[in-house]
């Protein structure tokens, strides 16, 4: 089924078309959300919200942009909202919850390679450091960086998703990388790992 066919059938409320849409784009949406929130469970929850929104507002979809661009935009916006809510609720979050979310991240890395514990530990520390460095970036730099690195989108594609010019994307990515290097250098000097 082509993209146009899926949209047309979805607008008529066809469930099979919705299933196909989810199967085709779930990896892309989950990956984008993961790049923003760095937690698989949260990323899947946000991705589900994105697909629910697609199902409900497919009639508002304008054919002048690609479906993937629309999905990326929704995934990014939902993730940013999630991060803002999460920050607001951080004061009320229990210690157990924060430990659980850290453990989920560690398990995710452990599942990739169980033969070398020292390699796992080092990777876990590196992942935490990298996530903290990415999270410390300004919101638009983080979005541009995530779309570029996790989804390997071109500058043009990122500019369409973010609704900015290509030169703005270039500038955002340049500043994001510069800031990341600064953060990583501070950690390198302090011997964090």
């Amino acid at each position, binding site marked *: 089924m082509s993209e146009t066919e899926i949209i047309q059938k979805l607008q008529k409320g066809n469930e099979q078309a919705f*299933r196909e849409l*989810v*199967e085709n784009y*779930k*990896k892309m949406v*989950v*990956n984008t959300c*993961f*790049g923003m929130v760095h937690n*698989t469970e949260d*990323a*899947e929850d946000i*991705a*589900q919200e994105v*697909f*629910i929104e697609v*199902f409900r507002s497919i009639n508002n979809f304008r054919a002048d942009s690609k479906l993937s661009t629309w999905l990326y935009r929704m995934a990014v916006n939902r993730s940013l909202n999630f991060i803002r809510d999460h920050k607001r609720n951080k004061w009320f979050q229990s210690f157990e919850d924060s430990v659980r979310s850290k453990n989920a991240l560690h398990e*995710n*890395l452990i599942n*990739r390679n169980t033969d070398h514990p020292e390699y796992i530990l080092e*990777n876990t520390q*590196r*992942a935490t*450091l*990298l996530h903290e460095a990415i999270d410390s970036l300004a919101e638009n730099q983080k979005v541009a960086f995530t779309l570029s*690195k*996790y989804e*390997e989108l071109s500058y043009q594609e990122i500019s369409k998703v973010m609704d900015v010019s290509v030169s703005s994307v270039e500038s955002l990515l340049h500043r994001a*990388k*510069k800031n*990341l*290097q600064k953060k*990583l*250098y501070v950690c*390198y000097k302090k011997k964090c*790992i």
Partner: protein
Amino acid sequence: MQTLHNKLIFFLEGDLPEKEMELVKNHLLECSTCAAFVEEMKKTLGILEAERSPAVNPFFYTRLKAKLENKESESKQVFWKPVLVRVLQPAIFSILLMIGIYAGIKIGQPAPAQSINISAANIDIISFLNEMDSESIEGFLME
């Protein structure tokens, strides 16, 4: 050297022009600190590749469908919620408040005056209680 140091991440990403790439490469051969940092940064940024495209839960669609159905049933219930919250709740609270105020006023009021002849009754009681009139204490002591 400071300018080259700031460009290390761009060197790793291959974002520099050929001339600058060469300059940084030569600098890394001479500067062991920068070379070690580049190596560290390469490993850390390599995490991005490992994290890319995480395995999605095989029951993703099933869970999504269940969530969608739940939301639909919730939205039907939500229709009654504003009526309950905005109309019934304040009405019940107002009625309870009025009942409370009325009960408070009723309890606080003095008992109504009785219509019996109090003056006659009082005299009888006083004469009954005041025995000093009929039998004075002095008289009692003198006996």
